[in-house]
């Protein structure tokens, strides 16, 4: 992530790529979490068109890892945002996109060094990114990883 992780005390998602199976259950549960009904079968059978996964499994050969927004200390997407939609919460450190304010200019996508922001073209064009499941104790991608290849812990640990 941009900026030293120790500069900011917050819980982040850490990747253990040596244990990522590439099963993509993280993507699936992310989609469910950000769906309307939050029910897996209903979400996929009826609402799937609306939902993008905010975590992406990258794979080359047997190497795989799931990457989502790093919530950078010095977030370039926030600096690049022309409408003030992309904001870093000063208390929690979480970078979120206010979908009401987002105008879909994709400046954030160009600025993001991790490719963690996606274009949500369904409905109004907006930037879709990880919100660290702020209303959950543990983000759903971490919670549902069958091999504990994602870890949610304090930066300092």
């Amino acid at each position, binding site marked *: 992530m941009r900026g030293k992780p120790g500069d900011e005390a917050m819980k982040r998602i850490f990747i*253990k790529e*040596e*244990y*990522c*199976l*590439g*099963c*993509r*259950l993280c993507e*699936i*549960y992310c989609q469910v979490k950000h769906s309307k009904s939050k029910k*897996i*079968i209903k979400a*996929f*059978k009826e609402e799937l068109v609306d939902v993008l996964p905010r975590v992406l499994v990258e794979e080359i050969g*047997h190497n795989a890892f799931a990457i989502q927004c790093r919530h950078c200390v010095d977030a370039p997407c926030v600096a690049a945002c022309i409408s003030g939609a992309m904001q870093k919460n000063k208390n929690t450190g979480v970078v979120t996109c206010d979908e009401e304010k987002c105008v879909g200019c994709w400046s954030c996508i160009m600025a993001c060094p991790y490719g963690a922001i996606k274009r949500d073209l369904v409905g109004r064009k907006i930037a879709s990114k990880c919100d660290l499941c702020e209303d959950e104790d543990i983000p759903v991608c971490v919670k*549902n990883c*069958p*091999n*504990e*290849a994602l870890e949610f812990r304090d930066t300092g640990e």
Partner: protein
Amino acid sequence: MALKLYQSEFSIERDVEKCISCQVCVRQCSNDVHEYISENDTIISDSMKCVGCHRCESMCPTGAIRIEEREPHFKTNYNWSSGHLKNIYRQADAGGVLLTGMGSDKPYPVYWDHILFNASQVTNPSIDPLREPMEIKTFIGRKSVQQQYPGCGPGPGEIRDTGKKKEKNGPVVGPQLELSTPVLFSAMSYGSISFNACRALAEAASEFGTCYNTGEGGLHRDLYGYAPNTIVQVASGRFGVDRQYLNMGAAIEIKIGQGAKPGIGGHLPGEKVTEDVSITRMIPMGSDAISPAPHHDIYSIEDLAQLIYALKEATGWSKPVGVKVSAVHNIAPIASGIVRAGADFITIDGLRGGTGAAPQVTRDNVGIPIELAIASVDERLREEGIRHFASILAAGSIRSSSDVIKAIALGADAVNIGTAALVAMGCHLCQKCYTGKCNWGIATQDPYLTKRLNPEVGKRRLLNLLRAWSLEIKELLGGAGINAIESLRGNREHLRGIGLSEKELSILGIKHAGETW
């Protein structure tokens, strides 16, 4: 061949109402059973390729998949069972020895299930293990006949007095392996199982205070740190054996035989001898690792004694040296010979013991059940007055804490668990270890598959299993009014048989349920 003489063993039931076409099953199956059809967004499954490992079923986020064992549609015949027919078809197809993995699945009597354990009532108090101390610490190694003290000379019947640990005020005993629970992990080599599986076993054994066993695969350099909890094995192939290896382990085990394949060596195919395996086994990369059926320097008990003492000399008499044999017909005199040859412990592996690969005909037809072997060996060694010279480790399908406690009451000092440990790490007993395509990342060296076993998770699950069994052992001991596992060892009065013949009872040395003294 277009003609299929036998059908699939499993049927794959996919509930299309629940399937969300997420393709987790497609990505997880190493046997390519599931295939995604993008045109109509569906998944089709080829049940012929299914081995019944239940990986897809376990991973499916909506519970849409169900793998069911399918009854073969052959005409019922109690003599020519479907198993026989299928094996003949397979052999007529390929003309080779049928291979299989894990322990025998044939319906031989499981004596554990015909033995009941005792409890205290009225005449002696039972003990609450949650409130009172219970001792299940176990020592493996040569014990003295009676309490001896330095300067008092060896006791009657001592074969040799070399290698004894002399303490100022304690009894004189040989080097001992101290275990916090009477359960060890069986010998499973790096090569037959993945490095992550080995690491999980090593870490769990180390943290819990018991031992794991390198099998014949040598000791991986990254596991040197767990050496104090490692039993290093010396098998007929002598893979990875050198002075450093011998000296590093907590104990040495000479492997003569394995319960699943008595009288048979081993063959790790060259494709599994990856760079890491080759370094650990000290053999060229890609070469077949062949363990001969016999040790070519052991053709008699005397030869075995030579090797035992050579290993003791090589390690400065600092650790117990044991011998692992499979339970065969004359196991009692064999064990007696092994003890007289100087072994500090004998590992006996029974008929139902597991393996990474064995000819099915051997696995399913050779050997005797471990329950009978423990009883007859313990009995013979007692009769001959040499029981204390060696500890007995029993192996070969120990499935629960009650099996552990029954084994100990029959006369074992501790038990080895192999299959149970793998099951704790996810194994579903599909018996396809020999294919190297283990979907659970255990019996494979394929980098796509080995990463499926996170050693942190494996270790935690193994620790939980050891903890749970240890607690249950304490519960059973307490119920029988015993506060130390030592007091149960060979205490067959605590066992009763149920549904067993006179002969079986007499071999087991136990009374039938309902018989009293």
